[in-house]
Protein backbone atom coordinates (compact mmCIF):
# COMPACT_ATOMS: atom_id res chain seq x y z
CA UNK A 1 0.00 0.00 0.00
CA UNK A 2 2.82 2.37 0.87
CA UNK A 3 4.76 2.17 -2.34
CA UNK A 4 1.57 2.17 -4.37
CA UNK A 5 0.44 5.42 -2.90
CA UNK A 6 1.99 7.64 -5.52
CA UNK A 7 0.59 5.56 -8.36
CA UNK A 8 -2.82 5.76 -6.77
CA UNK A 9 -2.48 9.52 -6.45
CA UNK A 10 -1.47 9.88 -10.07
CA UNK A 11 -4.41 7.78 -11.21
CA UNK A 12 -6.78 9.83 -9.10
CA UNK A 13 -5.47 13.07 -10.46
CA UNK A 14 -5.59 11.98 -14.07
CA UNK A 15 -9.16 10.81 -13.76
CA UNK A 16 -10.11 13.98 -11.90
CA UNK A 17 -8.44 16.11 -14.53
CA UNK A 18 -10.36 14.34 -17.25
CA UNK A 19 -13.76 14.59 -15.63
CA UNK A 20 -13.41 17.95 -14.08
CA UNK A 21 -11.90 20.55 -16.36
CA UNK A 22 -11.29 23.62 -14.30
CA UNK A 23 -10.75 26.28 -16.90
CA UNK A 24 -7.84 28.33 -15.73
CA UNK A 25 -6.97 29.35 -19.28
CA UNK A 26 -9.58 31.97 -20.02
CA UNK A 27 -9.69 34.18 -16.97
CA UNK A 28 -6.83 35.15 -14.71
CA UNK A 29 -6.99 33.16 -11.47
CA UNK A 30 -7.03 35.35 -8.38
CA UNK A 31 -6.99 33.36 -5.18
CA UNK A 32 -7.69 34.60 -1.67
CA UNK A 33 -6.19 31.94 0.58
CA UNK A 34 -7.57 31.20 4.04
CA UNK A 35 -5.15 28.72 5.60
CA UNK A 36 -1.40 28.72 6.15
CA UNK A 37 -0.87 25.21 4.78
CA UNK A 38 -2.68 26.09 1.55
CA UNK A 39 -0.51 29.15 0.99
CA UNK A 40 2.55 27.03 1.63
CA UNK A 41 1.46 24.52 -1.01
CA UNK A 42 0.73 27.23 -3.59
CA UNK A 43 4.27 28.50 -3.14
CA UNK A 44 5.81 25.03 -3.33
CA UNK A 45 4.09 24.24 -6.63
CA UNK A 46 5.01 27.62 -8.05
CA UNK A 47 1.48 29.01 -8.12
CA UNK A 48 2.09 31.97 -5.83
CA UNK A 49 1.45 34.37 -8.71
CA UNK A 50 -2.26 33.52 -8.36
CA UNK A 51 -2.42 34.63 -4.73
CA UNK A 52 -4.04 38.02 -4.13
CA UNK A 53 -4.46 37.78 -0.35
CA UNK A 54 -3.60 35.50 2.55
CA UNK A 55 -4.91 34.99 6.06
CA UNK A 56 -3.15 35.59 9.35
CA UNK A 57 -1.89 31.99 9.63
CA UNK A 58 -0.03 32.25 6.31
CA UNK A 59 3.47 33.03 7.51
CA UNK A 60 5.55 30.64 5.45
CA UNK A 61 7.44 31.31 3.28
CA UNK A 62 8.07 34.80 4.68
CA UNK A 63 6.86 36.28 1.39
CA UNK A 64 3.42 34.81 2.10
CA UNK A 65 2.70 37.49 4.68
CA UNK A 66 3.40 40.30 2.24
CA UNK A 67 -0.04 39.93 0.64
CA UNK A 68 -3.02 41.92 1.90
CA UNK A 69 -4.31 40.12 5.00
CA UNK A 70 -7.89 38.88 5.10
CA UNK A 71 -7.53 38.40 8.86
CA UNK A 72 -8.27 35.28 10.85
CA UNK A 73 -9.80 32.29 9.00
CA UNK A 74 -12.76 31.96 11.32
CA UNK A 75 -13.58 35.63 11.12
CA UNK A 76 -13.52 36.59 7.44
CA UNK A 77 -15.36 39.54 5.97
CA UNK A 78 -17.33 39.11 2.77
CA UNK A 79 -16.84 42.64 1.54
CA UNK A 80 -13.19 42.60 2.51
CA UNK A 81 -12.69 39.48 0.43
CA UNK A 82 -14.62 40.95 -2.48
CA UNK A 83 -12.51 44.09 -2.43
CA UNK A 84 -9.67 41.98 -3.85
CA UNK A 85 -11.96 40.74 -6.64
CA UNK A 86 -10.87 37.12 -6.22
CA UNK A 87 -12.02 34.48 -8.67
CA UNK A 88 -11.59 31.82 -6.02
CA UNK A 89 -11.56 31.68 -2.26
CA UNK A 90 -9.57 28.70 -1.11
CA UNK A 91 -9.90 27.56 2.47
CA UNK A 92 -10.23 24.62 4.79
CA UNK A 93 -13.13 23.35 6.83
CA UNK A 94 -12.42 25.91 9.57
CA UNK A 95 -13.38 28.88 7.37
CA UNK A 96 -15.98 31.15 8.91
CA UNK A 97 -18.16 32.74 10.13
CA UNK A 98 -20.84 30.35 8.81
CA UNK A 99 -22.90 33.13 7.23
CA UNK A 100 -20.04 34.05 4.92
CA UNK A 101 -20.77 31.13 2.60
CA UNK A 102 -24.27 32.37 1.86
CA UNK A 103 -22.96 35.89 1.39
CA UNK A 104 -20.26 34.78 -1.03
CA UNK A 105 -22.68 32.53 -2.88
CA UNK A 106 -25.00 35.48 -3.44
CA UNK A 107 -22.04 37.36 -4.91
CA UNK A 108 -21.22 34.42 -7.19
CA UNK A 109 -17.64 33.82 -6.13
CA UNK A 110 -16.28 30.32 -6.19
CA UNK A 111 -15.37 28.98 -2.76
CA UNK A 112 -13.46 25.73 -2.32
CA UNK A 113 -13.15 24.21 1.14
CA UNK A 114 -10.69 21.39 1.58
CA UNK A 115 -10.67 18.93 4.44
CA UNK A 116 -7.97 19.37 7.03
CA UNK A 117 -5.12 16.92 6.59
CA UNK A 118 -4.45 14.63 9.53
CA UNK A 119 -1.70 12.44 8.09
CA UNK A 120 1.14 12.44 5.57
CA UNK A 121 -1.26 10.92 3.03
CA UNK A 122 -3.72 13.71 3.73
CA UNK A 123 -1.04 16.34 3.15
CA UNK A 124 -0.07 14.75 -0.16
CA UNK A 125 -3.73 14.60 -1.19
CA UNK A 126 -4.06 18.28 -0.41
CA UNK A 127 -1.05 19.11 -2.60
CA UNK A 128 -2.50 17.11 -5.50
CA UNK A 129 -5.92 18.67 -5.06
CA UNK A 130 -4.50 22.19 -5.10
CA UNK A 131 -2.37 21.34 -8.13
CA UNK A 132 -5.56 20.33 -9.86
CA UNK A 133 -7.48 23.44 -8.75
CA UNK A 134 -4.87 25.86 -10.08
CA UNK A 135 -4.07 23.69 -13.10
CA UNK A 136 -0.52 22.93 -11.98
CA UNK A 137 -0.91 19.17 -11.87
CA UNK A 138 2.52 18.50 -13.33
CA UNK A 139 4.24 20.65 -10.74
CA UNK A 140 2.22 19.10 -7.93
CA UNK A 141 3.06 15.57 -9.06
CA UNK A 142 6.69 16.51 -9.40
CA UNK A 143 6.80 18.10 -5.96
CA UNK A 144 5.12 15.11 -4.36
CA UNK A 145 7.24 12.57 -6.21
CA UNK A 146 10.58 14.25 -5.65
CA UNK A 147 10.20 15.53 -2.10
CA UNK A 148 7.15 14.52 -0.12
CA UNK A 149 6.57 10.91 -1.11
CA UNK A 150 10.17 9.76 -0.50
CA UNK A 151 10.08 11.24 2.99
CA UNK A 152 6.67 9.75 3.71
CA UNK A 153 7.79 6.31 2.50
CA UNK A 154 11.07 6.44 4.37
CA UNK A 155 9.31 7.34 7.58
CA UNK A 156 6.60 4.71 7.12
CA UNK A 157 9.05 1.89 6.41
CA UNK A 158 11.44 2.88 9.16
CA UNK A 159 8.65 3.12 11.72
CA UNK A 160 7.74 -0.50 10.94
CA UNK A 161 11.05 -1.54 12.53
CA UNK A 162 10.46 0.45 15.67
CA UNK A 163 9.91 -1.68 18.75
CA UNK A 164 9.13 0.81 21.47
CA UNK A 165 7.07 3.96 20.99
CA UNK A 166 8.03 6.82 23.31
CA UNK A 167 5.43 8.56 25.48
CA UNK A 168 5.40 12.18 24.43
CA UNK A 169 3.86 15.31 25.87
CA UNK A 170 3.16 18.13 23.42
CA UNK A 171 2.54 21.48 25.09
CA UNK A 172 1.15 24.57 23.45
CA UNK A 173 1.42 27.14 26.17
CA UNK A 174 3.15 27.45 29.50
CA UNK A 175 2.39 31.07 30.15
CA UNK A 176 -0.44 31.26 32.60
CA UNK A 177 -1.94 28.68 34.85
CA UNK A 178 -1.76 25.04 33.90
CA UNK A 179 0.14 24.20 30.71
CA UNK A 180 -2.06 23.51 27.65
CA UNK A 181 -1.44 20.02 26.31
CA UNK A 182 -2.39 18.38 23.02
CA UNK A 183 -4.97 15.67 23.60
CA UNK A 184 -6.64 13.25 21.21
CA UNK A 185 -8.06 14.61 17.93
CA UNK A 186 -5.70 17.60 17.81
CA UNK A 187 -3.05 18.44 15.25
CA UNK A 188 -0.55 17.55 17.98
CA UNK A 189 -1.97 14.04 18.25
CA UNK A 190 -1.92 13.59 14.46
CA UNK A 191 1.72 14.61 14.38
CA UNK A 192 2.64 12.15 17.13
CA UNK A 193 0.82 9.44 15.16
CA UNK A 194 2.89 10.33 12.09
CA UNK A 195 6.12 10.29 14.05
CA UNK A 196 5.56 6.95 15.77
CA UNK A 197 4.98 8.20 19.30
CA UNK A 198 2.23 7.80 21.88
CA UNK A 199 0.55 10.75 23.49
CA UNK A 200 0.79 10.68 27.29
CA UNK A 201 -2.39 12.71 27.41
CA UNK A 202 -5.70 10.89 27.13
CA UNK A 203 -8.30 13.65 27.02
CA UNK A 204 -9.67 15.18 23.83
CA UNK A 205 -8.64 18.58 22.49
CA UNK A 206 -6.17 21.22 23.67
CA UNK A 207 -6.73 21.48 27.40
CA UNK A 208 -4.97 22.60 30.52
CA UNK A 209 -3.30 19.68 32.26
CA UNK A 210 -2.59 19.43 35.96
CA UNK A 211 1.09 19.57 36.78
CA UNK A 212 0.70 16.74 39.27
CA UNK A 213 -0.78 14.55 36.56
CA UNK A 214 2.24 15.42 34.43
CA UNK A 215 4.59 14.25 37.12
CA UNK A 216 2.67 10.99 37.38
CA UNK A 217 2.73 10.54 33.60
CA UNK A 218 6.50 11.14 33.24
CA UNK A 219 6.68 11.59 29.46
CA UNK A 220 9.83 10.41 27.70
CA UNK A 221 9.95 13.60 25.63
CA UNK A 222 8.39 17.04 25.87
CA UNK A 223 7.69 18.91 22.63
CA UNK A 224 7.27 22.67 22.71
CA UNK A 225 6.79 25.18 19.92
CA UNK A 226 9.17 28.09 19.51
CA UNK A 227 6.30 30.48 20.31
CA UNK A 228 5.93 28.87 23.73
CA UNK A 229 9.62 29.30 24.34
CA UNK A 230 9.78 32.91 23.23
CA UNK A 231 6.71 33.96 25.22
CA UNK A 232 8.13 32.24 28.28
CA UNK A 233 11.39 34.16 27.76
CA UNK A 234 13.63 31.31 26.61
CA UNK A 235 14.42 27.67 27.18
CA UNK A 236 16.14 28.49 30.46
CA UNK A 237 12.98 30.05 31.86
CA UNK A 238 10.97 27.04 30.71
CA UNK A 239 13.34 24.69 32.51
CA UNK A 240 12.99 26.83 35.63
CA UNK A 241 9.24 26.28 35.78
CA UNK A 242 8.81 24.35 39.05
CA UNK A 243 7.16 21.26 37.56
CA UNK A 244 10.13 20.73 35.25
CA UNK A 245 12.28 19.79 38.23
CA UNK A 246 10.12 16.70 38.64
CA UNK A 247 10.06 15.66 35.01
CA UNK A 248 12.83 13.34 33.96
CA UNK A 249 12.48 14.44 30.35
CA UNK A 250 13.30 18.02 31.30
CA UNK A 251 16.14 17.01 33.58
CA UNK A 252 17.71 14.83 30.87
CA UNK A 253 17.37 17.48 28.17
CA UNK A 254 14.71 15.62 26.28
CA UNK A 255 12.80 18.79 25.47
CA UNK A 256 12.27 19.30 21.74
CA UNK A 257 11.54 22.78 20.44
CA UNK A 258 10.14 23.23 16.96
CA UNK A 259 8.66 25.96 14.80
CA UNK A 260 4.89 25.83 15.35
CA UNK A 261 3.67 26.08 11.77
CA UNK A 262 6.40 23.69 10.57
CA UNK A 263 5.36 21.14 13.14
CA UNK A 264 1.59 21.51 13.34
CA UNK A 265 0.56 23.44 10.22
CA UNK A 266 -0.02 20.25 8.22
CA UNK A 267 1.42 21.76 5.11
CA UNK A 268 4.12 19.88 3.17
CA UNK A 269 6.76 20.73 5.77
CA UNK A 270 4.91 18.81 8.47
CA UNK A 271 5.94 15.53 6.77
CA UNK A 272 9.54 16.56 7.22
CA UNK A 273 8.83 17.69 10.77
CA UNK A 274 7.47 14.23 11.57
CA UNK A 275 10.55 12.63 10.06
CA UNK A 276 12.87 14.97 11.88
CA UNK A 277 11.20 14.57 15.23
CA UNK A 278 10.86 10.79 14.82
CA UNK A 279 14.58 10.46 14.29
CA UNK A 280 15.13 12.18 17.62
CA UNK A 281 13.16 9.67 19.67
CA UNK A 282 13.87 6.72 17.43
CA UNK A 283 17.67 6.85 17.05
CA UNK A 284 17.50 3.46 15.29
CA UNK A 285 15.85 5.14 12.28
CA UNK A 286 18.27 5.26 9.36
CA UNK A 287 18.99 8.93 8.56
CA UNK A 288 17.04 10.14 5.55
CA UNK A 289 19.77 12.20 3.95
CA UNK A 290 19.26 15.77 2.82
CA UNK A 291 15.96 17.17 4.05
CA UNK A 292 14.34 19.39 1.40
CA UNK A 293 13.09 22.18 3.68
CA UNK A 294 14.80 24.36 6.22
CA UNK A 295 14.94 22.33 9.41
CA UNK A 296 12.59 23.15 12.26
CA UNK A 297 14.39 21.94 15.36
CA UNK A 298 15.55 24.84 17.48
CA UNK A 299 17.71 22.88 19.93
CA UNK A 300 16.79 22.32 23.54
Amino acid sequence: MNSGYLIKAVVVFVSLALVDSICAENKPVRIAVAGGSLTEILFFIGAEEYIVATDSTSNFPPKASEFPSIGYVRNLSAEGLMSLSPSLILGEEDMGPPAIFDQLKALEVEVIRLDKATSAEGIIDKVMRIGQIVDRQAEAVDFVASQLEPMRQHLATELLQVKRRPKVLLLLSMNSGAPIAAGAKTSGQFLLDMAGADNVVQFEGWKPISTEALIALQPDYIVLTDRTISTAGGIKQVKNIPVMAYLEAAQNDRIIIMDGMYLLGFGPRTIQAALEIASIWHPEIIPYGALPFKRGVKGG
Partner: protein
Amino acid sequence: MNRELLLLVALAASLFLVVLCGIAYGAISYPLSQVFKVLVYALVGGESTPEGLGIIVGLRLPRVLMGMLAGAALAGAGACLQGLFRNPLADPGLVGVSGGAAVGAAFAIIIGPVVMPLIYAEYSLYVLPLFAFTGALSVTMMLYGFSRMGGQVVVAYMLLTGIAINAMASVLIGLMVYLSDDGQLRDFTFWSMGSLASITWPAVKVVSLPIVVCLVLMIGLIRPLNLFQLGEQGARHLGLNIGLLKKVVVVLVAISVGACVALTGAIGFVGLVVPHLIRLMVGTDHQYVIPGALLLGPLVIVLADLIARIWVAPGELPLGLVTGAIGAPFFLWLLLQQQKRASL
Protein backbone atom coordinates in the same frame (compact mmCIF):
# COMPACT_ATOMS: atom_id res chain seq x y z
CA MET B 1 -35.76 75.93 20.84
CA ASN B 2 -33.95 74.93 24.04
CA ARG B 3 -30.43 73.57 24.23
CA GLU B 4 -31.47 69.97 24.86
CA LEU B 5 -33.76 69.85 21.87
CA LEU B 6 -31.06 71.38 19.72
CA LEU B 7 -28.69 68.64 20.82
CA LEU B 8 -31.18 65.97 19.85
CA VAL B 9 -31.59 67.52 16.42
CA ALA B 10 -27.82 67.64 16.01
CA LEU B 11 -27.62 63.98 17.02
CA ALA B 12 -30.29 63.03 14.51
CA ALA B 13 -28.46 64.90 11.76
CA SER B 14 -25.15 63.23 12.63
CA LEU B 15 -26.83 59.84 12.72
CA PHE B 16 -28.21 60.45 9.24
CA LEU B 17 -24.76 61.40 8.00
CA VAL B 18 -23.07 58.39 9.63
CA VAL B 19 -25.67 56.04 8.17
CA LEU B 20 -25.02 57.46 4.71
CA CYS B 21 -21.28 56.95 5.21
CA GLY B 22 -21.93 53.42 6.45
CA ILE B 23 -23.71 52.65 3.20
CA ALA B 24 -21.29 54.54 0.96
CA TYR B 25 -17.96 53.31 2.31
CA GLY B 26 -16.45 49.90 2.91
CA ALA B 27 -13.58 47.68 1.89
CA ILE B 28 -14.55 48.18 -1.75
CA SER B 29 -14.77 51.81 -2.80
CA TYR B 30 -17.41 52.95 -5.22
CA PRO B 31 -17.85 56.52 -6.42
CA LEU B 32 -20.69 58.21 -4.55
CA SER B 33 -22.62 58.55 -7.80
CA GLN B 34 -22.50 54.77 -8.19
CA VAL B 35 -23.73 54.26 -4.64
CA PHE B 36 -26.59 56.63 -5.38
CA LYS B 37 -27.40 54.77 -8.60
CA VAL B 38 -27.48 51.46 -6.74
CA LEU B 39 -29.77 52.84 -4.03
CA VAL B 40 -32.13 54.29 -6.62
CA TYR B 41 -32.18 50.95 -8.41
CA ALA B 42 -32.91 49.15 -5.17
CA LEU B 43 -35.80 51.50 -4.40
CA VAL B 44 -37.51 52.00 -7.74
CA GLY B 45 -35.83 49.49 -10.03
CA GLY B 46 -34.33 50.08 -13.46
CA GLU B 47 -33.37 48.37 -16.66
CA SER B 48 -29.89 47.02 -15.99
CA THR B 49 -28.46 45.83 -12.69
CA PRO B 50 -25.92 48.45 -11.59
CA GLU B 51 -22.47 47.37 -10.51
CA GLY B 52 -22.09 46.95 -6.76
CA LEU B 53 -25.71 46.00 -6.08
CA GLY B 54 -24.71 42.77 -4.34
CA ILE B 55 -22.17 44.53 -2.13
CA ILE B 56 -24.04 47.70 -1.26
CA VAL B 57 -27.58 46.35 -0.95
CA GLY B 58 -26.75 42.72 -0.23
CA LEU B 59 -23.96 43.16 2.31
CA ARG B 60 -23.76 46.75 3.59
CA LEU B 61 -27.39 47.79 3.91
CA PRO B 62 -28.45 44.95 6.22
CA ARG B 63 -25.46 45.57 8.49
CA VAL B 64 -26.15 49.28 8.71
CA LEU B 65 -29.81 48.66 9.49
CA MET B 66 -28.97 46.02 12.07
CA GLY B 67 -26.36 48.36 13.53
CA MET B 68 -29.04 51.02 13.99
CA LEU B 69 -31.45 48.57 15.59
CA ALA B 70 -28.79 47.13 17.87
CA GLY B 71 -27.47 50.54 18.89
CA ALA B 72 -30.94 51.84 19.70
CA ALA B 73 -31.90 48.68 21.57
CA LEU B 74 -28.72 48.57 23.67
CA ALA B 75 -28.61 52.26 24.49
CA GLY B 76 -32.36 52.52 25.03
CA ALA B 77 -32.33 49.47 27.30
CA GLY B 78 -29.39 50.92 29.22
CA ALA B 79 -31.18 54.24 29.70
CA CYS B 80 -34.37 52.55 30.95
CA LEU B 81 -32.48 50.29 33.34
CA GLN B 82 -30.39 53.10 34.76
CA GLY B 83 -33.66 54.94 35.34
CA LEU B 84 -35.29 51.94 36.96
CA PHE B 85 -32.35 51.13 39.22
CA ARG B 86 -31.61 54.79 39.79
CA ASN B 87 -28.07 53.60 39.47
CA PRO B 88 -25.64 54.80 36.82
CA LEU B 89 -23.87 51.43 36.76
CA ALA B 90 -26.89 49.51 35.50
CA ASP B 91 -26.66 48.04 32.02
CA PRO B 92 -28.43 45.28 30.11
CA GLY B 93 -25.92 42.79 31.46
CA LEU B 94 -27.22 43.40 34.96
CA VAL B 95 -30.61 41.81 34.37
CA GLY B 96 -28.96 38.76 32.85
CA VAL B 97 -29.63 39.42 29.16
CA SER B 98 -26.00 39.32 28.08
CA GLY B 99 -25.06 36.45 30.36
CA GLY B 100 -28.07 34.45 29.26
CA ALA B 101 -27.37 35.10 25.59
CA ALA B 102 -23.75 34.08 26.08
CA VAL B 103 -24.79 30.82 27.76
CA GLY B 104 -27.12 30.14 24.83
CA ALA B 105 -24.43 30.99 22.29
CA ALA B 106 -21.80 28.86 24.01
CA PHE B 107 -24.26 25.98 24.10
CA ALA B 108 -25.04 26.39 20.41
CA ILE B 109 -21.36 26.56 19.45
CA ILE B 110 -19.89 23.93 21.75
CA ILE B 111 -22.52 21.43 22.95
CA GLY B 112 -25.14 21.71 20.20
CA PRO B 113 -23.20 20.09 17.36
CA VAL B 114 -22.62 17.02 19.55
CA VAL B 115 -26.13 16.50 20.88
CA MET B 116 -28.15 17.41 17.78
CA PRO B 117 -26.01 16.92 14.69
CA LEU B 118 -29.04 16.47 12.41
CA ILE B 119 -30.45 19.88 13.22
CA TYR B 120 -27.05 21.42 12.56
CA ALA B 121 -26.72 19.75 9.19
CA GLU B 122 -29.89 21.50 8.08
CA TYR B 123 -30.30 24.72 10.08
CA SER B 124 -26.86 25.56 11.45
CA LEU B 125 -27.23 29.27 10.70
CA TYR B 126 -30.38 29.64 12.79
CA VAL B 127 -29.39 27.59 15.80
CA LEU B 128 -27.04 30.11 17.41
CA PRO B 129 -29.37 33.15 17.27
CA LEU B 130 -32.26 31.04 18.49
CA PHE B 131 -30.34 29.67 21.44
CA ALA B 132 -28.82 33.03 22.32
CA PHE B 133 -32.24 34.66 22.30
CA THR B 134 -33.78 31.85 24.35
CA GLY B 135 -30.89 32.11 26.79
CA ALA B 136 -31.28 35.87 27.13
CA LEU B 137 -35.01 35.65 27.69
CA SER B 138 -35.00 32.74 30.11
CA VAL B 139 -32.18 33.99 32.28
CA THR B 140 -33.81 37.42 32.54
CA MET B 141 -37.16 35.91 33.43
CA MET B 142 -35.51 33.66 35.98
CA LEU B 143 -33.82 36.64 37.55
CA TYR B 144 -37.07 38.55 37.66
CA GLY B 145 -38.78 35.53 39.18
CA PHE B 146 -36.18 35.23 41.92
CA SER B 147 -36.35 38.90 42.80
CA ARG B 148 -40.13 38.64 43.14
CA MET B 149 -40.04 35.85 45.64
CA GLY B 150 -40.67 38.13 48.61
CA GLY B 151 -43.92 39.34 47.02
CA GLN B 152 -42.81 42.55 45.38
CA VAL B 153 -39.72 43.37 43.41
CA VAL B 154 -37.26 45.39 45.43
CA VAL B 155 -34.86 47.03 43.02
CA ALA B 156 -31.79 46.64 45.22
CA TYR B 157 -32.63 42.98 45.70
CA MET B 158 -32.92 42.53 41.96
CA LEU B 159 -29.46 43.98 41.53
CA LEU B 160 -27.96 41.46 43.93
CA THR B 161 -29.89 38.60 42.33
CA GLY B 162 -28.45 39.78 39.03
CA ILE B 163 -24.94 39.43 40.35
CA ALA B 164 -25.64 35.89 41.58
CA ILE B 165 -27.32 34.79 38.36
CA ASN B 166 -24.59 36.32 36.21
CA ALA B 167 -22.01 34.47 38.28
CA MET B 168 -23.85 31.23 37.61
CA ALA B 169 -23.98 32.05 33.92
CA SER B 170 -20.24 32.58 33.80
CA VAL B 171 -19.69 29.24 35.51
CA LEU B 172 -21.78 27.55 32.81
CA ILE B 173 -19.87 29.40 30.10
CA GLY B 174 -16.56 28.49 31.67
CA LEU B 175 -17.58 24.86 31.85
CA MET B 176 -18.49 24.80 28.16
CA VAL B 177 -15.33 26.68 27.21
CA TYR B 178 -13.39 24.01 29.08
CA LEU B 179 -15.08 21.34 26.99
CA SER B 180 -14.60 23.20 23.71
CA ASP B 181 -12.02 22.49 21.05
CA ASP B 182 -9.71 25.09 19.61
CA GLY B 183 -12.06 26.15 16.83
CA GLN B 184 -15.13 26.38 19.03
CA LEU B 185 -13.23 28.44 21.54
CA ARG B 186 -12.19 30.88 18.83
CA ASP B 187 -15.76 31.09 17.55
CA PHE B 188 -17.07 31.84 21.00
CA THR B 189 -14.37 34.42 21.63
CA PHE B 190 -15.30 36.22 18.44
CA TRP B 191 -18.99 35.97 19.31
CA SER B 192 -18.32 37.66 22.63
CA MET B 193 -16.62 40.58 20.87
CA GLY B 194 -19.62 41.21 18.63
CA SER B 195 -19.84 41.67 14.88
CA LEU B 196 -22.28 42.71 12.22
CA ALA B 197 -20.44 40.73 9.54
CA SER B 198 -22.92 37.86 9.46
CA ILE B 199 -26.05 39.98 9.23
CA THR B 200 -28.22 39.13 6.25
CA TRP B 201 -31.55 40.48 5.06
CA PRO B 202 -33.66 37.63 6.45
CA ALA B 203 -32.11 38.22 9.88
CA VAL B 204 -32.90 41.94 9.79
CA LYS B 205 -36.46 41.24 8.68
CA VAL B 206 -37.05 38.80 11.52
CA VAL B 207 -35.83 41.03 14.35
CA SER B 208 -36.78 44.50 13.14
CA LEU B 209 -40.45 44.31 14.10
CA PRO B 210 -40.00 43.20 17.74
CA ILE B 211 -37.11 45.60 18.27
CA VAL B 212 -38.93 48.59 16.79
CA VAL B 213 -42.01 47.84 18.91
CA CYS B 214 -39.82 47.74 22.02
CA LEU B 215 -38.16 51.03 21.09
CA VAL B 216 -41.50 52.76 20.65
CA LEU B 217 -42.66 51.44 24.02
CA MET B 218 -39.44 52.73 25.60
CA ILE B 219 -40.40 56.23 24.51
CA GLY B 220 -43.67 55.64 26.33
CA LEU B 221 -41.70 55.05 29.54
CA ILE B 222 -40.41 58.63 29.68
CA ARG B 223 -42.99 59.95 32.15
CA PRO B 224 -43.12 56.86 34.40
CA LEU B 225 -39.33 56.82 34.66
CA ASN B 226 -39.25 60.51 35.50
CA LEU B 227 -41.79 59.94 38.28
CA PHE B 228 -39.81 56.95 39.48
CA GLN B 229 -36.80 59.18 40.10
CA LEU B 230 -38.73 60.66 43.06
CA GLY B 231 -38.35 57.32 44.83
CA GLU B 232 -40.78 54.42 45.01
CA GLN B 233 -42.93 56.00 47.73
CA GLY B 234 -43.24 59.32 45.97
CA ALA B 235 -43.93 57.76 42.63
CA ARG B 236 -46.65 55.56 44.09
CA HIS B 237 -48.35 58.55 45.66
CA LEU B 238 -48.40 60.22 42.28
CA GLY B 239 -50.33 57.25 40.93
CA LEU B 240 -47.57 55.27 39.23
CA ASN B 241 -48.03 51.51 39.04
CA ILE B 242 -44.54 50.60 40.15
CA GLY B 243 -44.88 46.86 39.79
CA LEU B 244 -46.03 47.26 36.21
CA LEU B 245 -43.18 49.65 35.38
CA LYS B 246 -40.58 47.18 36.62
CA LYS B 247 -42.15 44.36 34.67
CA VAL B 248 -42.41 46.40 31.47
CA VAL B 249 -38.80 47.59 31.64
CA VAL B 250 -37.46 44.09 32.20
CA VAL B 251 -39.54 42.61 29.38
CA LEU B 252 -38.62 45.36 26.92
CA VAL B 253 -34.94 45.02 27.72
CA ALA B 254 -35.01 41.25 27.48
CA ILE B 255 -36.74 41.20 24.11
CA SER B 256 -34.95 44.08 22.39
CA VAL B 257 -31.44 43.38 23.65
CA GLY B 258 -31.93 39.62 23.48
CA ALA B 259 -33.00 39.83 19.84
CA CYS B 260 -30.06 41.91 18.73
CA VAL B 261 -27.41 40.20 20.84
CA ALA B 262 -28.59 36.91 19.37
CA LEU B 263 -27.58 38.15 15.92
CA THR B 264 -24.66 40.45 16.63
CA GLY B 265 -22.97 38.78 19.57
CA ALA B 266 -22.07 40.73 22.68
CA ILE B 267 -21.29 44.37 21.93
CA GLY B 268 -19.79 45.94 25.00
CA PHE B 269 -19.83 49.54 26.22
CA VAL B 270 -22.90 50.85 24.35
CA GLY B 271 -25.59 49.85 26.84
CA LEU B 272 -23.68 51.20 29.81
CA VAL B 273 -21.96 54.29 28.51
CA VAL B 274 -24.17 55.78 25.80
CA PRO B 275 -26.97 56.68 28.26
CA HIS B 276 -24.29 58.27 30.45
CA LEU B 277 -22.92 60.32 27.63
CA ILE B 278 -26.42 61.54 26.91
CA ARG B 279 -27.01 62.41 30.55
CA LEU B 280 -23.76 64.32 30.68
CA MET B 281 -24.99 66.31 27.68
CA VAL B 282 -28.70 66.85 28.38
CA GLY B 283 -29.18 66.27 32.12
CA THR B 284 -31.35 63.70 33.87
CA ASP B 285 -34.77 64.35 32.34
CA HIS B 286 -35.84 61.16 30.58
CA GLN B 287 -37.70 63.28 28.06
CA TYR B 288 -34.27 63.91 26.55
CA VAL B 289 -32.27 60.98 27.87
CA ILE B 290 -34.30 58.27 26.16
CA PRO B 291 -34.60 59.84 22.70
CA GLY B 292 -30.96 60.87 22.99
CA ALA B 293 -29.89 57.30 23.76
CA LEU B 294 -32.02 56.01 20.89
CA LEU B 295 -30.11 58.35 18.56
CA LEU B 296 -26.59 58.14 19.94
CA GLY B 297 -26.61 54.33 20.29
CA PRO B 298 -27.14 53.72 16.56
CA LEU B 299 -24.67 56.48 15.73
CA VAL B 300 -21.95 54.85 17.82
CA ILE B 301 -22.54 51.37 16.45
CA VAL B 302 -22.84 52.31 12.78
CA LEU B 303 -19.71 54.45 13.05
CA ALA B 304 -17.81 51.73 14.92
CA ASP B 305 -18.87 49.14 12.35
CA LEU B 306 -17.67 51.40 9.55
CA ILE B 307 -14.28 51.65 11.23
CA ALA B 308 -14.24 47.90 11.88
CA ARG B 309 -14.83 47.27 8.18
CA ILE B 310 -12.34 49.77 6.80
CA TRP B 311 -9.43 49.90 9.21
CA VAL B 312 -7.79 46.52 8.58
CA ALA B 313 -9.47 45.81 5.22
CA PRO B 314 -9.57 43.29 3.63
CA GLY B 315 -9.73 41.86 7.16
CA GLU B 316 -12.26 43.02 9.72
CA LEU B 317 -12.06 44.00 13.39
CA PRO B 318 -14.55 42.71 15.97
CA LEU B 319 -17.15 45.42 16.54
CA GLY B 320 -16.99 45.29 20.34
CA LEU B 321 -13.31 46.22 20.20
CA VAL B 322 -14.03 49.35 18.22
CA THR B 323 -16.99 50.50 20.33
CA GLY B 324 -14.78 50.12 23.39
CA ALA B 325 -11.79 51.77 21.80
CA ILE B 326 -13.64 54.91 20.74
CA GLY B 327 -16.11 55.00 23.60
CA ALA B 328 -14.02 54.42 26.68
CA PRO B 329 -11.47 57.23 26.18
CA PHE B 330 -14.21 59.66 25.15
CA PHE B 331 -16.17 58.77 28.25
CA LEU B 332 -13.11 59.27 30.43
CA TRP B 333 -12.53 62.66 28.85
CA LEU B 334 -16.13 63.70 29.53
CA LEU B 335 -15.83 62.62 33.17
CA LEU B 336 -12.64 64.64 33.58
CA GLN B 337 -14.35 67.66 32.07
CA GLN B 338 -17.22 67.29 34.50
CA GLN B 339 -14.86 66.98 37.44
CA LYS B 340 -13.02 70.07 36.38
CA ARG B 341 -16.27 71.99 36.14
CA ALA B 342 -17.35 70.73 39.57
CA SER B 343 -14.10 71.76 41.22
CA LEU B 344 -14.19 75.27 39.81
